[in-house]
């Protein structure tokens, strides 16, 4: 039953992701001519390319699902994120072009959750501090998005470092701590006057340190959840 749902979700995800790639390319190439259909964006090219990149993530999630290698609640939760985050984010990048891809991706994400809701909920709850830290890393990227190129790259790299730190391997605690601090502190320091980046950095350090401590205190789940095929 679950395997069948996963297959259905995989197909939805693959079709939604593929349509998303097309929507992103259309936005990048002809967004200005499409007007309100493409959301009347001032900068259609970067938004189109961002849509392509996020859609590619959804396609990757669909491929993993299709391969049937979903063995743990954590992996299932990650796949839900891989489908739902592009599904939601691109609602603001390509206008009406996203209606069909977005609906398919969100439906796919819902189907993956429905296959094992308890396992997904437990995985998310167990890693909640890591999830919060990742969200804070994404906030860095969002705040930096309107900056000049050099600062944009620095802010995006800092955000990705913060987002990734809690998920680094179990044996890499010092590295995880270093990545978290290097991601959070320098960018906040040079953009202190925005005030917001300081708040994000403080919250990221609190949540990230706790997440890393938790992750390294508990050994990996000895019994991966297996779903009937």
């Amino acid at each position, binding site marked *: 039953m679950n395997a069948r749902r996963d297959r259905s979700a995989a197909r939805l995800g693959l079709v939604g992701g593929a349509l998303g790639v097309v929507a992103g390319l259309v936005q990048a190439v002809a967004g200005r001519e499409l007007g309100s259909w493409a959301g009347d964006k001032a900068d259609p090219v970067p938004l189109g390319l961002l849509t392509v990149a996020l859609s590619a993530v959804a396609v990757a999630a669909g491929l993993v699902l299709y391969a049937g290698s979903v063995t743990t609640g954590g992996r299932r939760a990650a796949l839900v994120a891989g489908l739902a985050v592009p599904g939601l984010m691109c609602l603001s990048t390509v206008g009406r072009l996203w209606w069909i891809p977005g609906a398919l991706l969100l439906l796919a994400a819902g189907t993956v959750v429905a296959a094992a809701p308890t396992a997904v909920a437990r995985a998310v709850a167990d890693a909640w501090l890591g999830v919060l830290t990742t*969200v804070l890393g994404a*906030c860095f990227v969002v*705040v930096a998005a309107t*900056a000049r190129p050099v600062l944009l790259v620095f802010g995006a790299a800092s955000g990705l470092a913060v987002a990734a730190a809690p998920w680094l391997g179990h044996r890499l605690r010092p590295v995880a701590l270093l990545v978290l601090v290097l991601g959070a502190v320098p960018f906040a320091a040079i953009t202190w006057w925005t005030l917001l980046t300081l708040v994000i950095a403080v919250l990221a350090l609190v949540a990230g340190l706790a997440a890393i401590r938790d992750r390294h205190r508990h050994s990996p789940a000895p019994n991966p959840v297996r779903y009937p095929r």
Partner: protein
Amino acid sequence: MGGPSDDAVTGPAVGGVSRRGVLRAGGVGVLTVAVVGVGGLSYRAYDNEVRDPAQGHAFDAWRQWREERGYPGLAAAAVLAASPHNTQPWLFRVHDDRIDLYADSARGLGTLDPFGREMHVGLGCALENLALAAAARGYDAHVAVRPDPADPLLVARVDLARGTARGSALYDAIGDRHTNRGPYRDSEVPAGILAALTALTGDAAPASVAWFTTADAKHRLSDLMVTAAEAIVADEQQSRDGFGCLRSSGDSIERHKDGLTLDGQGLNAPITAAAKLLPATSRTSGDRFWVAQTRTVHTRTAAAYGMILTPDPRDPAQRLAGGRLLQRIHLAVTARGLAMQHMNQITERIDRDRSLARPAQFEPALSALVAQPGRQTLATFRIGYPVRAGRRSPRRPAAEVIR
């Protein structure tokens, strides 16, 4: 964690839930709420360009004005001129041998400018930029003001012929000129600079400039400005018309490419960032802020006031001449590293009283200050050495205002 210290740290379990567990759950809950809030603020920071303002298309005109060639290039310089509340009330019609400058009557300030005084001054500023650009780019420009009395919207005709390029410091300052509403340093403007600025009057007759540099004159003019600002915010219609020019979000700046922005208020970086992150200001709180800034920053830190005078500020041709002189002074001030801010609250109240046929409240006091028989105030401004640089204001590019 282990051993005997566990009990001390975790506390007694009640109903199967330890104190530590409760504290942790509470902490995670608070952290979650904080992250949700920060997520919302981050989107607002993105939307309002907190990180790096003036990067959007609404500011392209500042970055690209030198790249435009031919007659559109002259209009590209003209659109960077000062205008009342950054309304940009101009339209250009480009012909084979001339450019016609029209007033865009849809871009008035309502009760703040009932007779179009400031609109014509702004058009004069644009005309000056256009003339400077023409000279710098190798055109001989002949300006005819109001060439067709039957068409009041046609404010100037600029006939152009190929000539020799004559660059100037004023032309070079076009892209750096911004209204600076921030504090100015406690330094006097040297008399030599004021004399040089006065000399710019040149062929601007009948417009002239008068300076107010003594403590007493500045004090009297400051008091009048603050009183006028208070009167404007107390006048609901004037307050509404002023509020209509505010652009409080990145979206509205990009959509309209005009108006007044938070970045243009001359505040320091953290205060500007905080103002952008907070919900958009209401009309009344915006009014309070403006009056407070007028009282505590604009008037208090003015190194000198200047006034453009003409015999009859109601004459559109004189307004255009005054606008050209005002722009020339602003460019010269910019080239010398000084800052300038237009401060028209007194004349806005004078025109308001006149439009309502009320007794003049401000005109007698202003005339007494000017004390130049036969000349009246067209526009007022302050100058000084700025604490921080002025910021770019949004602009409609030339392509959007050429018909």
